[in-house]
């Protein structure tokens, strides 16, 4: 049954506001993979990433009443919650201690886990189409959207001028928009 139901954004929001559990299950099935990617971009510890993902969805469910659809889409809101939670965890003291110990061990698991990123979207062809993004455009989008870096931070990190960051970002987003229109 859950696979056959597809909600529009408004229906989903309405059902979640009324505390509908099957809508929440749909939300999880549909978006957990994307949010998981965001966490894994910032954290290499698989176990910790799973805990953060679980906590993020607990927050999404418990704080759903604070979501305002006039300010943006549901996914943007969920992504911000997840990203902030991950960044907060990284900044916490206990994480810093642990990270030192696990650093070497996890560097290996991280890369290997990313190779079998899911192929779920190949059916829609979108995954293939996002290949239209050039590698340097993708990098800027990933740093901003997934890792939450500001344009200035990206400019420093990649050692390229701020203007270049801005142009790359705009071009990349307009490419992504065109993919949808095609």
């Amino acid at each position, binding site marked *: 049954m859950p696979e056959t139901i597809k909600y529009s954004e408004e*229906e989903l929001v309405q059902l979640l506001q009324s505390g509908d559990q099957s809508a929440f299950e749909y939300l999880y099935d549909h978006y957990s993979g994307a949010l998981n990617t965001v966490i894994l971009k910032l954290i290499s510890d698989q176990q910790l990433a799973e805990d953060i993902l679980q906590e993020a969805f607990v927050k999404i469910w418990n704080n759903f009443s604070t979501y305002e659809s006039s300010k943006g889409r549901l996914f*943007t809101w969920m992504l911000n919650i997840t990203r902030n939670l991950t960044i907060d965890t990284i900044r916490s003291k206990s994480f810093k201690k642990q990270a030192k110990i696990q650093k070497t061990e996890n560097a290996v698991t991280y890369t290997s886990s990313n190779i079998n990123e899911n192929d779920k*979207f190949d059916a829609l062809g979108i995954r293939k189409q*996002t290949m239209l993004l050039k590698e340097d455009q993708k990098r800027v989008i990933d740093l901003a959207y997934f890792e939450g870096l500001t344009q200035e931070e990206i400019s420093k990190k990649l050692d390229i001028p701020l203007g270049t960051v801005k142009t790359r970002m705009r071009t990349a987003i307009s490419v992504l928009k065109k993919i949808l229109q095609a």
Partner: protein
Amino acid sequence: MTKEEFILSGLLELYAMGISSPEETQIVQEHLDRFPELKQELKETEIALENYALSNSTQPAPSVKEKLFNQLFSGDEKNPLNMAPVVSMTKKSFVPLFYKSIAAAVFILLIGSMVLNYSYFNKYHKAQDALDLAQQQLQQKEKSNAAMTHDLSVVTNKYAMPVVLNGTPHAPDALAKIFWMKNTGQVYIDPSNLPKVPSGMQYQLWGIVDGKPVSGGMIETSKGIYHIQKMKSFGKVDAFAITLEKAGGSPTPTMDQMIVSAKM
């Protein structure tokens, strides 16, 4: 910022990616309120990014979902602490598994159909409202179309003789047009350029026949809008005039309230 300056600033993209500073966020929200059409632009940007994120999904282990749903939704019915003392193990196994799964399937179908019902019911209501609105609009359009067709048929009648009534010194800007049908003597008046009537007053048309004023009827306004309307017929007339009278009209014209007139 104007709308164009705002779009060029690139703030909307930063906002869609969730990396705008608090000040920038405030600016974006102000502009979204000011130019509602920007919401569509924002939505498209968000969907584009969302699809990028979805296409980069990394499926988490299935155990995460299990733990999450246990944490959030156990306790209402599945809590073993509540169930153990009430239902004994032997009683529980009394119901064959086959029936249990049928009951579960029926229950799932019921819930599923309730969800669908709810969503279709909402859709039905939205569609009904939209239909009502469309029908109302259609009726209004038909009404105004009929009025317009009528107006036009008077103006284009080949027997219609247009007579322009010019403003008197009381109302130099006022103007009215009469269409006098030469074959039937019917008189139509187009009062759309007369000044607004004070409340409790009404315009009255007069025809001067053999030097005497004869009432041509009252000019009606509906909701403040003037339409071409039929007045009393005149076979022969020396002049037309319109005066401002108290509502309902007067037997003789109040000459110092003459607004427009025309000699034939």
